[in-house]
């Protein structure tokens, strides 16, 4: 027995130096490692691996490792695709898969406590038997763990309704080298909530040992349909319009022309190239065969992957229509209202019926089976998920696609849409050695940076994007490093991953040069870059001059308002601060938040707001002309009614309970935004209030922390609202 085995064995019940276990823990699913393996190069293996079973064991283990200077590599299910896990020679791998219970089900608040090593599919299966679901459904759900979802800021296929996994987590228990850390609603009063820093830290700060996550009832009703658009731009416009109209689709997937052609998704009329030359027909045949696993073994495909430039050039010539899959799910009374309202944005599209959408739903995890045959044939395949605002999205798509197309065959789809922007998921395959693989990534990541997007939306950073993420965050990394110093002073946690040691080449962005209080208005992404110290009234007036108003109205200057904002008040769809530019005392500045829900490491905006002087804040706005609807209902229990409606999936911009001072009946008032408002009011039996009453939404409140306040927002209350004493 080795010394590490003996010592660790005194803390954790199971530890091994068996080469079989070390080999298995030597890699995650990073395509680079797989490519090396295909070329006969084994991954590095750790010194030992252990399987803790309790939080306390982990705390003791990390305490020992910190004193002994032993690097710790956390390992969940090893499904990461960026090299974020996997042993290095001198490390101790900590495998969390023997911590995999559901420790508590709280139906009252729709919260579930789960341990990190549980596989995603197992969690959903177990919850389903209780009538519950997270509806977090990444394509890796069969092979990824819950802890990994949080550590790398995972996103699922229904994220436009339910949010990313980070939006579902309301609290965590974390073992760090300096002890236990509680986050979210369990974080100690008066202290900074480090939840946003832990999520996305990829095991470099500590090991998550328990998560408290939001759940929903298993959806009663689902509506899925496919549409063909004449081109990518018109389809993206429809997606943007739907997301900005508060219609909350669960599924919104747009395939680019090449991806649309695959498998003949639009039928025989899918491409414009029919009737063109032999090359086009051959290309079409290849693409349309790619839905079939057998095609991945054909010689034809070998040739295609070896000549990516030619294939991509032919693809560019296709132009062609694109496929959009849309879906809503939830309450059978609410979903039809949302669907009906969305039809107004689909006028230019061809309705392809439900079958293609249901086919996608049925086979939504099958795409991963196509990876192995490509590696088996000596090629490589990989995916790249980037994100940006709507304004920068299409240019970024073209820049990144062109960068990739120089080296590999590339196709893509747009999913994970937000009111402010969207993610693009590039899938590429090619032939060649590790140098070609590295060059492909290097050029593509450079294109993302130049296009102003984030280098990762939900796969995380690992080793693959460590340099790019470091560059993207610039001086904001000081925020992370300060917390790293505090939680892991010895630097033992997953060393070498997530970020590199390099410092930014310059001092960061210059202060805003335009005149405030509104520095810039991105009307396409519904984002305003504003002065953080301007008064709300001045901001409101300036926005109104442009035809916009706050989505979430502040009640004091933004800087103070945001500092007081409790993260628990986050509705998954209500983001009070999108981007932030702030200056440190030494004159260096940082700007972060250029894309929705970046997974380029932790969310550092809140720490940056605390540690540097904000110069500009990017906030969500809504057009003054946006349809809105105020409705109310007389009820002796406004908060019970509010909770029922929110739990059914209604997403009002705000809801307010009011009691009658003269013994009259209490009322619940709701402000609904978007074209579905009127039909929702009718379907739910609410009383419409004259349009003139529908003014700006009321300031948001945190229902958990301020139970006596009378206004709550969106789905936050769905999970956290208890019984307010004054209800």
């Amino acid at each position: 027995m080795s010394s590490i085995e003996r010592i660790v064995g005194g803390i954790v019940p199971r530890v091994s130096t068996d080469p079989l276990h070390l080999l298995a823990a030597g890699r995650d699913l990073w395509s680079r490692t797989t490519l090396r393996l295909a070329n006969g190069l084994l991954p590095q293996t750790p010194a030992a691996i252990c399987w803790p079973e309790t939080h306390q064991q982990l705390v003791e283990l990390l305490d020992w490792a910190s004193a002994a200077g032993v690097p710790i590599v956390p390992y969940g299910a090893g499904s990461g695709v960026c090299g974020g896990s996997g042993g290095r020679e001198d490390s101790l791998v900590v495998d969390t898969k023997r911590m995999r219970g559901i420790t508590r089900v709280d139906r009252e608040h729709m919260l579930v406590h789960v341990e990190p090593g549980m596989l995603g599919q197992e969690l959903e299966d177990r919850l389903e038997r209780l009538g519950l679901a997270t509806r977090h459904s990444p394509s890796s759900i069969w092979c990824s763990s819950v802890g990994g979802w949080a550590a790398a800021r995972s996103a699922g296929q229904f994220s436009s309704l339910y949010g990313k996994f980070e939006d579902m987590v309301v609290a965590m228990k974390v073992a760090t080298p300096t002890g236990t850390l509680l986050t979210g609603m369990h974080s100690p009063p008066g202290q900074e909530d480090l939840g946003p820093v832990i999520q996305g830290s990829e095991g470099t700060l500590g090991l998550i040992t328990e998560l408290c996550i939001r759940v929903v009832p298993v959806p009663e009703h689902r509506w899925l349909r496919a549409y063909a658009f004449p081109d990518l731009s018109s389809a993206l416009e429809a997606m943007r319009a739907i997301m900005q109209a508060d219609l909350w689709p669960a599924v919104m997937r747009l395939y680019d022309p090449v991806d649309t052609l695959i498998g003949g998704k639009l039928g025989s009329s899918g491409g414009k190239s029919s009737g063109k030359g032999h090359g086009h027909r051959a290309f079409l045949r290849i693409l349309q065969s790619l839905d079939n696993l057998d095609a991945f073994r054909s010689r034809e495909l070998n040739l295609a992957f070896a000549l990516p430039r030619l294939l991509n050039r032919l693809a560019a010539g296709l132009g062609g229509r694109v496929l959009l899959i849309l879906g809503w799910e939830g309450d059978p009374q609410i979903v039809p209202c949302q669907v009906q309202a969305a039809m107004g944005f689909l006028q230019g599209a061809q309705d392809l019926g439900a079958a293609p959408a249901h086919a996608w739903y049925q086979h939504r995890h099958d795409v991963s089976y196509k990876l192995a045959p490509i590696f088996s044939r000596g090629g490589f395949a990989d995916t790249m998920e980037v994100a940006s605002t709507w304004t920068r999205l299409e240019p970024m798509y073209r820049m990144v696609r062109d960068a990739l197309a120089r080296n590999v065959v590339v196709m893509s789809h747009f999913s994970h849409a937000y009111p402010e922007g969207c993610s693009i998921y590039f899938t590429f395959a090619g032939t060649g050695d590790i140098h070609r693989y590295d060059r492909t990534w290097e050029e593509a990541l450079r294109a993302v940076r130049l296009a102003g997007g984030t280098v990762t939306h939900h796969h995380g950073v690992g080793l693959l994007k460590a340099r790019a993420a470091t560059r993207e965050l610039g001086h904001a990394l000081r925020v992370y490093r300060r917390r790293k110093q505090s939680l892991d002073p010895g630097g033992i946690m997953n060393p070498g991953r997530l970020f590199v040691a390099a410092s930014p080449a310059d001092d960061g962005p210059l202060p805003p040069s335009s005149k405030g209080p509104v520095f810039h208005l991105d009307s396409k992404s519904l984002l305003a870059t504003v002065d953080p110290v301007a008064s709300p009234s001045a901001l409101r007036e300036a926005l109104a001059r442009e035809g916009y108003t706050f989505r979430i109205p502040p009640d004091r200057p933004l800087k103070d308002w945001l500092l007081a904002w409790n993260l628990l008040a986050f509705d998954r769809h209500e983001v009070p601060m999108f981007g932030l530019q702030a200056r440190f005392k030494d004159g260096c500045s940082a700007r972060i938040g250029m894309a929705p829900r970046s997974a380029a490491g932790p969310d550092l905006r809140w720490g940056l707001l605390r540690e540097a002087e904000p110069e500009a804040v990017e906030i969500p706005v809504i057009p003054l002309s946006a349809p809105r609807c105020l409705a109310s209902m007389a009820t002796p229990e406004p908060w019970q009614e509010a909770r029922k409606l929110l739990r059914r999936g209604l997403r009002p911009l705000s809801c307010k309970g009011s009691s009658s001072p003269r013994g009259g009946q209490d009322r619940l008032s709701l402000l609904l935004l978007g074209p579905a408002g009127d039909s929702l009011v009718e379907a739910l039996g609410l009383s419409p209030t004259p349009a003139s009453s529908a003014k700006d939404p009321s300031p948001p409140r945190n229902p958990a922390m301020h139970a006596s306040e009378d206004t709550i927002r969106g789905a936050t209350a769905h999970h956290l609202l208890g019984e307010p004493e004054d209800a």
Partner: protein
Amino acid sequence: MPDPYQTCTFCPRLCRHVCPVALATGLEAATPSAMMGAVYLARRGLLDPSLAGRAAAMCTACGACSRHCKEQVPVGDLLSQARSRYLPPRSPEALAPVEGDAPRVAVECDTRSWAGALARKLREPVARLHTSDHLGASCMDHPQTAEPQISSLARLLDGRIAITSCSACAGVLRRANLQYVWLHSLPGIHVPTPVLDSPTMKLSPAPDLLPGTLPCCGQGGILARSFPQLAKDLARECASRLPATAVPTFDSLFRVALTPYDVDIYDPIDILLGEAPAASLHEGTSKGGEAPQKRTPLHGAP
């Protein structure tokens, strides 16, 4: 068809969530992809072959991964082949003689009298075949041990119908292409296989695996022989996933494995005979504080 070992090695572990061993043990090395990967590397000369053999010995050949796999890779068979290549053959216990001349033979792989119970139920004599190693289930990888065992078994049964309640024994009988009936009364553990219905015995149709339960208890095959601790983990996991605390079981190994985990066990012979006392199907508390589901009448009971 590409090398299936290679396919599994490069697959992003898409079947790990259905593999009972991987789930129960939490071992990365016990995922079907890792087991197949070890064999793939050994075949390429990149890994010590004995490690590949040990990796393959973690498979119970329950077939859950193959049923899930879109490529339908026969992982269990391939790992059996790997074991025959990388592990030394293991000799089965000598088969005991069949006791009795009746046309039906109860295979008894534990200490209970299945033959007597069946005889009472069928109101006719039932012969008995006792086996202490599940008819040599863990010795089926190597042709040099499997084939003589299959021949001996065929001679021993001599056209008679074997009746077993154990998946490991049923696996040997299936492999030997002999007539058998599997009483499959562990719907919460074993994946039912098609049941040979004899003209005189009408048994209930094979039930589906209960939701959330595991397809294999791993007590009868190579896993229990090679990795007793892992087999124990698997038994424990099986027990924790059954929807009620009353666990009908007839496999003594499984019974022993479950004993430390405070699980009530009663004899399925009682069920078979229609004598299972309802009072014995009591409810308990399952993990997570949720009320356990009430156990429905067992499939397979006449």
